[in-house]
């Protein structure tokens, strides 16, 4: 058992293995505020990787309606409940943010790794049943309360609410699946931090299924092994001919019609901290603006998919799901800084992974009032660069508009 630093918790924690940071870490930002649950991501993944016999109930990417939906059913509340049973009332955070390496404060409760020792395991967990895996989109669009039918809703928080949560493997910095495997058949790639199950060594013990709190390793009865999201590693490696050797976003990211996803790689230091890289759009949104937050950071795995929390959802729920950074993140999102307004334009404008960006100032085009505060909008231009430093994309904050001439009015 090693002692490792988890910046999302602002403290050291127990983990089975010593830190071994990859040089680059797979990471993504999802804007829950914009998702329309069309499941295009889900189907893109399904039709790429999990269309074979034995994989019928396997959805490496899924979108579920919160708070009632879940794939597998109740995955999050079950693990939260296990933690609560192991350490009643103890899952609290200190209020004080502790600088860039403890941006959300310090978690005072038990992680799944802390609690695992009490049950003779590397981490606390449970194995979902067939029934729990059977309904990936159960409770779709089911809201909390029906009050809106009579009264309507108002911001900042809706009385009647639901939201869509997009989920795939978090390719965690401290993966619970990896530490759970008694055979060491799971590994985290040095080059991109993608976590994979070695299909040659796996013996289907399902300890990864049991101990991944996000329940993203899945058992395949057809091969009697567990499989999981592979982070579309051939694309991230740049093996796809389309990008001519440059890293490419995963299938689920690249197809998103709602443009809610931005995926890439962040540079890591040998000690596991993120290289200071404010021109990387992921680093900028996650570490500089703190607009995007990890999903259930208290589990302790240091997940690498980050979410803009849905701004209409009651804050206690969001603080439980995304940690104490939820209020600040929503503030940063609803009234984004001038630079953030530009970076937000980079979502889904390219299949190539954007490694850095540059903003060129434009004219001020508007001034609006957001929650009593003024927000200026500038038509800045943002340029995204690839791994080789070449320009991939150039977009403006204000989407250009074109008027169709009369002579083409009814043409396509």
């Amino acid at each position, binding site marked *: 058992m090693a002692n490792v630093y988890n910046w999302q918790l602002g403290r050291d924690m127990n983990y089975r293995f010593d830190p071994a940071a990859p040089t680059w870490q797979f990471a993504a930002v999802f804007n829950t505020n914009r998702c329309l649950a069309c499941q295009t991501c889900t189907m893109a993944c399904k039709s790429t990787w999990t269309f074979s016999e034995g994989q019928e109930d396997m959805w490496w990417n899924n979108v579920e309606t919160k708070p009632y939906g879940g794939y597998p059913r109740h995955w999050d509340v079950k693990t939260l409940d296990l933690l609560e049973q192991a350490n009643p009332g103890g899952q609290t955070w200190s209020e004080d943010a502790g600088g860039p390496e403890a941006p959300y404060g310090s978690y005072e409760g038990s992680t799944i790794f802390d609690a695992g020792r009490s049950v003779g*395991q590397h981490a606390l967990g449970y194995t979902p049943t067939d029934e729990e895996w059977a309904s990936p989109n159960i409770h779709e669009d089911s809201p909390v309360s029906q009050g809106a039918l009579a009264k309507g809703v108002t911001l900042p928080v809706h009385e009647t609410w639901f939201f869509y949560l997009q989920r795939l493997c978090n390719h965690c910095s401290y993966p619970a699946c990896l530490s759970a495997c008694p055979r060491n058949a799971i590994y985290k790639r040095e080059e991109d931090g993608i976590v994979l199950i070695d299909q040659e060594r796996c013996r289907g*013990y399902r300890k990864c299924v049991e101990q991944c709190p996000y329940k993203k390793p899945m058992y395949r*009865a057809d091969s009697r092994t567990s499989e999981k999201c592979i982070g579309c590693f051939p694309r991230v490696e740049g093996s796809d001919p389309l990008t001519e050797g440059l890293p490419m976003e995963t299938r689920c990211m690249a197809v998103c019609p709602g443009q809610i996803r931005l995926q890439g790689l962040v540079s890591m230091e040998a000690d596991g901290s993120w290289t200071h890289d404010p021109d990387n759009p992921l680093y900028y949104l996650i570490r500089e603006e703190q607009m995007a937050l990890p999903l259930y950071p208290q589990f302790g795995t240091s997940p690498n998919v980050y979410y803009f929390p849905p701004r209409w959802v009651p804050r206690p729920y969001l603080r439980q799901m995304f940690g104490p950074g939820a209020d600040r993140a929503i503030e940063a999102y609803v009234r984004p800084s001038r630079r953030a307004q530009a970076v937000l334009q980079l979502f889904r404008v390219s299949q190539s992974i954007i490694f850095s960006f540059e903003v060129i100032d434009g004219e001020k085009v508007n001034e609006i009032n957001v929650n009593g505060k003024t927000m200026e909008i500038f038509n800045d231009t943002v340029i995204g660069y690839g791994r080789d430093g070449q320009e991939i994309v150039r977009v403006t904050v204000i989407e250009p508009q074109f008027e169709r001439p009369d002579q083409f009015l009814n043409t396509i």
Partner: protein
Amino acid sequence: MQPATSTRQDNRRLRAPAAVLLAVAAAVLIGLFDVAPVRSQIPILEAAPTSVAVPTDDAWATVWNDAPSLRVPLSAQDIAFPYGGGAVDAVTVRSLYDEERLYISIEWADHSADDSVSGAAEFSDAAALQFSADPLKTPPYTMGSPGAPVNIWQWKAVWQADAERGFPSTTDRYPNTHVDGYPGEGNPLYNPAAHLGNPLAPRTHASLIENLLAEGFGTLTSLDVQDVEGSGAWRNDRWRVVFARTLAPGIDGLASFETHRTAVVAFAVWDGASGDRNGQKSVAQFIELDIGPVERVAVTDEQAQPPGTTERGIPWVALGLILSAVLPLLAMAAIVFYRTDASDIGQPAQRNWRH
């Protein structure tokens, strides 16, 4: 952690002096009777010679009726994560041999035959024998160690079911399933485990017994040589499994046996209904396995010597007397410690042999 009740506190305080008394008594007895501890507690399974053919596809064959049996207690595995097991408290083992082969049967009570791993949370009953893979060494019974490998023969109820009923398809598992078709059906790339030669993935098995090697936790590896035969059957709420293999296959890394010599064998049983798999199992340490009558004095010291055993020849009387004098002092220290923590008095090595 639950708060300790006053009763538990009282018990803890009583336990320490009791343990000391027992230890003193044991030391005196050791001194008086000149017996080697631990060694004398290790039971011996004696393989009986047979001239009758031993079927490997019928675990309940009558040939086993007259074979000497030994009851071996099992305990939950609590040496390495993941801990678990404990649902099966003992196995009854028997052994036979003929000119060519060694046969071992293992039998235990189990109210359910768990022979499917189709469900996400379904696990298979299983049983395994463990031998030293190097005739010159007795490895740790805990899956061996680097340089001291163990050879493991594992029977799995699910492989038995595959052989008897066929590998279940999706429609076998979920009869109301409808699938239009699978793109790329038959392309091995889409079943990567099978494509990579994972021994768990094939739909048929060369033998119902998997032959494996390990050199410590997490190193279990299926061997290229799959020469162990056998089968299991569940009858009257009991599993019985028979294993058979050539006495001396002459291949490095495989257990080898000689008649009238002693080997070591350890046992493990998995109860699928309890979620047992991998390290979550009921286990026993190595016991000695005599292949026919063995002149014990001649072989025990130079050959099998399970961990924790002690060489003969130590002046036990003197040691007993010294222990008798020293232990009361240790007892004083123990009592002080016990007021704060008495969570685990037993050692795993001893716990295995408590009846």
